[in-house]
């Protein structure tokens, strides 16, 4: 079964990761109960670059992101196989401090998921949790709000409910909240898919600004967007109802000269 899929997926096998690799994924698989959602994923993610994950819905992109910060632990019935090595640490070995791991790997979700408290409290909560001194809370909050361009919009109503913001503002606040902890890697799962074009544009420009400063893995359905923002690309595909990575590499190379016929078809269809 797994052999057949291995054939079908034709994913590249990578050698054992070296210690200085930023994030190395080897032979990763994800299953929900008996259903295999993702199989034999090998991929290296580089420091300081934006990696875009593209591919049709339901082929395991979200599942993949969830394995990187072990949010998969929280999903009932979800099991993960294979290795994920982040800055030299195997994150699926015993004794890993999951709180610390998640502080180092931030995440932004498809739908804004702010806590039902004030804007200020949303930023304070992770800072307090990870031991930020009380006298630095305000400074750090202002810093991240400026980074995502929200400061001028919300500085006069920090104590308003976070849910009173518009969808685009909420999503930017989610990004700011993830940035409070200065994560080494930021995961973004279709951060624009619930937003209107204007808000999408604002977020896209924000990501472009963050490029080089942060390491980002972003799932997107918008190929034009992927081309504009990504340094690297990984293409996810479904074979026999289970997902895998069929092609990955420099964005320019994949977009200009895709190697796999499925990638060609997908890119053509999307441009269509």
């Amino acid at each position, binding site marked *: 079964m797994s052999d057949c899929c291995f054939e079908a997926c034709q994913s590249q096998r990578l050698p054992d990761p070296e210690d200085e690799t930023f994030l190395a994924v080897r032979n990763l698989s994800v299953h929900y109960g008996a259903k295999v959602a993702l199989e034999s994923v090998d991929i290296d993610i580089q420091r300081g670059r934006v990696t875009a994950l593209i591919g049709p819905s339901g082929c395991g992109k979200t599942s993949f992101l969830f394995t990187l910060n072990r949010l998969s632990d929280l999903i009932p019935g979800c099991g993960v196989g294979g290795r994920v090595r982040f800055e030299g640490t195997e994150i699926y070995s015993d004794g890993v*401090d999951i*709180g*610390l791991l998640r*502080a180092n790997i931030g995440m932004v979700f498809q739908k804004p998921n702010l806590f039902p408290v004030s804007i200020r409290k949303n930023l304070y909560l992770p800072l307090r*949790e*990870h*031991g930020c001194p009380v006298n630095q809370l305000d400074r750090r909050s202002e810093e991240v709000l400026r980074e995502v361009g929200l400061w001028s919009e919300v500085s006069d109503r920090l104590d308003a409910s976070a849910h009173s913001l518009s969808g685009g503002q909420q999503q930017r606040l989610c990004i700011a909240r993830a940035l409070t902890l200065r994560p080494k890697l930021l995961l973004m799962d279709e951060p624009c898919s619930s937003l209107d074009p204007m808000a999408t544009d604002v977020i896209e420009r924000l990501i472009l600004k963050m490029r080089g400063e942060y390491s980002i893995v972003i799932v997107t359905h918008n190929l034009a967007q992927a081309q504009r923002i990504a340094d690297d690309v990984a293409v996810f595909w479904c074979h026999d109802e289970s997902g895998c990575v069929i092609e990955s590499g420099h964005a320019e190379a994949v977009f200009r000269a895709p190697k796999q016929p499925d990638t060609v078809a997908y890119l053509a269809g999307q441009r269509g």
Partner: protein
Amino acid sequence: MKTRGATRNDRILLWGLRGASVLASSIVLLIVYFLLAESLPALRRIGIARFVTDGDWLPSTAEGENQYRLVPMLAATLLSTLGAVLIAAPAGLLSAVFCHFYAPKALATLQRRIVELLAGIPSVIYGFWGLVTLVPILQRLAPPGQNLLAGILVLTLMILPTIAMLASATLATIPQAHLQGAAALGLSRWTTLRGVVLPEAAPGLLIALLLGTMRAVGETMAVLMVCGNVVQIPTSLFDPVRTLTANIALEMGYATSEHRSVLFVSGLALMALVVLLIGLQRQFRRSVTLV
């Protein structure tokens, strides 16, 4: 640094939660243990058979001559429950049907509120009301008025809100599409009820009925106040009776040694009845969700 402390907090929290949960669930075990421990002397010295074969309920005559016939109390409990369920089940269902299919919106809300309020009225008030209002009426029919029928009527009132509210919750789960389908066929309201609503709601209604039964079996104050409390197997609805629960309430105050132990036996019997009903209901729930 901080995160290490946090995982320790998490571990303490988890143990706290487990401790509290074990404590909460051990209450049932404690109840069963104490019921058993206190009934054991009676079960040993008197034996179950005598609860049936003894000629009468004479719990506090001279030592050694006591008689412990529990059958009349058991009969009273079962008969009053049966009567109340026979009336309250259809009435509760009709009241729920009224809210969902017949009443204009405002009336439906009013009826729902009334049923809710009825559910919140304590049993001692039902008993009191039965005593001052219902019993005088029944007295004119057949003195002394405190009898099985009074018990059945008061119990009916008490379990009707339970059944009506659960039935209403069940009716609310019937997909709107099925009702629209029936309406599109031009079916009358009664045909829709019989053909679509009742079959779909049946499992939920049965669970409502079981819960109502459970409440009626365990009710003490209301039956204590209106049933007359004469130890006898009733031959008509107008005979005064004494239920198992009323018997405990009446005699626990002065019962000692063997007598007290027999009262705990009747408590154990009540508990067994309730556990049986809960088991039935859980079994039923499971089979419903499997389908």
